[in-house]
């Protein structure tokens, strides 16, 4: 009897482990969060996922060309909506999973707060507005503040962070999630920039995908989200 039970458990876990991990495409800015959630997810559900990361624009491009991702965590609304149309997917495949926050990173004594940017002549690093919603938001914010200096456009928020960590410029605006351990981080009032609604697309439906989405709603997961500088999506 015990033997049969053991064999059954063994077979079940084998079946579970035999499941290929989810392939999750994630925008550079959200990658740290999913990385942090990887262990807890596996522990909670016995399932796993592997991450492919790039900017939202690049990943969208790849998906349109047939890349085999299961779920795509984008950094905006626009790209998931585009993909929905392009791939002819039903509306319920898209949902908002987080609200992004922008932070100011400054090591220049001339810039102590956002307002100082109006007269600042040095370079400011942002992500590429054409490809990264964080970049677009930062660009708009700088316009509003009246900044007229040189905007260095990194390819994505991660590269923006890399530039800042190497001190290639003293000031930058990038996603809170990637700026975690940089010195000189200041939070910015969310009202000052357009809402950075981050949506995901379930490209291939599966039990695992459902499990992942459910896991993201749990309290521990939400806490991790907040720790990384995101806000939970507004309750519908």
């Amino acid at each position: 009897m015990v033997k049969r039970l053991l064999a059954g458990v063994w077979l079940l876990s084998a079946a579970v482990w035999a499941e290929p991990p989810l392939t999750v495409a994630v925008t550079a800015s959200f990658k740290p969060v999913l990385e942090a959630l990887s262990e807890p997810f596996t522990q909670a559900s016995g399932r796993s996922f592997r991450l492919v990361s790039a900017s939202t624009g690049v990943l969208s491009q790849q998906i349109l060309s047939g890349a085999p991702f299961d779920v795509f965590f984008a950094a905006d609304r626009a790209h998931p909506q585009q993909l929905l149309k392009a791939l002819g997917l039903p509306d319920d495949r898209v949902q908002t999973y987080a609200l992004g926050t922008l932070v100011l990173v400054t090591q220049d004594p001339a810039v102590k707060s956002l307002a100082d940017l109006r007269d600042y002549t040095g370079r400011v690093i942002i992500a590429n507005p054409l490809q990264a919603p964080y970049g677009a938001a930062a660009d708009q914010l700088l316009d509003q503040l009246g900044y007229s200096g040189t905007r260095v456009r990194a390819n994505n928020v991660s590269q923006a962070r890399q530039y800042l960590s190497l001190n290639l410029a003293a000031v930058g605006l990038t996603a809170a999630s990637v700026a975690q351990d940089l010195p000189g981080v200041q939070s910015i009032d969310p009202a000052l920039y357009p809402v950075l609604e981050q949506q995901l697309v379930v490209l291939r439906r599966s039990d695992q995908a459902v499990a992942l989405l459910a896991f993201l709603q749990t309290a521990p997961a939400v806490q991790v989200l907040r720790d990384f500088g995101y806000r939970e999506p507004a309750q519908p």
Partner: protein
Amino acid sequence: MILDAIGLTLRLAGTTTLLLLIICMPLAAWLASTRSRAKPWVESLVALPLVLPPTVLGFYLLLIMSPNSQIGAAWVELFGQSLAFSFWGLVIGSMAYSLPFVVQPLQRTFEGQGAFIAEAAHTLGAHPWQTFWAIRLPLALPGLIAASVLGFTHTVGEFGVVLMIGGNIPGQTQVLSILLFDQVESLNYALAHQLAGGLVLSSLLVLFCLYRWNHQSAIRIGG
């Protein structure tokens, strides 16, 4: 925006090629005639950018340009901001990237001159420098032109290094290849087509002219 990018690309390629020629001519002449033990080392270093992914080059350049390094810090001292994201930063990156494309054809040209050319001048009393200016350089003119064209077109096509160290600043570091990338990623295929098509056609034209001129020169000398 497009015109800016074209102008910038041409300026970058022109500056890079000119500076490379100045450095590479003596280097190639030395490589062609030396029997020193250092030769394979130097040749390997020169050939590195051919085999390394541009991301490696870009990575090391970023580290060097950062004020965290001595060189980067010195530059910031002098100029107030880092070498990265500037035209001259791109020039340095492009010079490293296109180095083998200028050195190698030049080296082959000088090697093709044979050892006796320099020997004949030396035995008449001409010092190596005098030999270089009066004999080897004028004889190397066709090779010089080929090396320039190759270096120039290669720099025009540069992408990976610029992507890492450029900062994509319109008018300053947004070269054609980067502009094209931007358009593709934003799904602006119409503009992307124009840019890509233009690059292909112009490169083809330049290369064709070069090879045809080579061919005609060969016929002239042979005849």
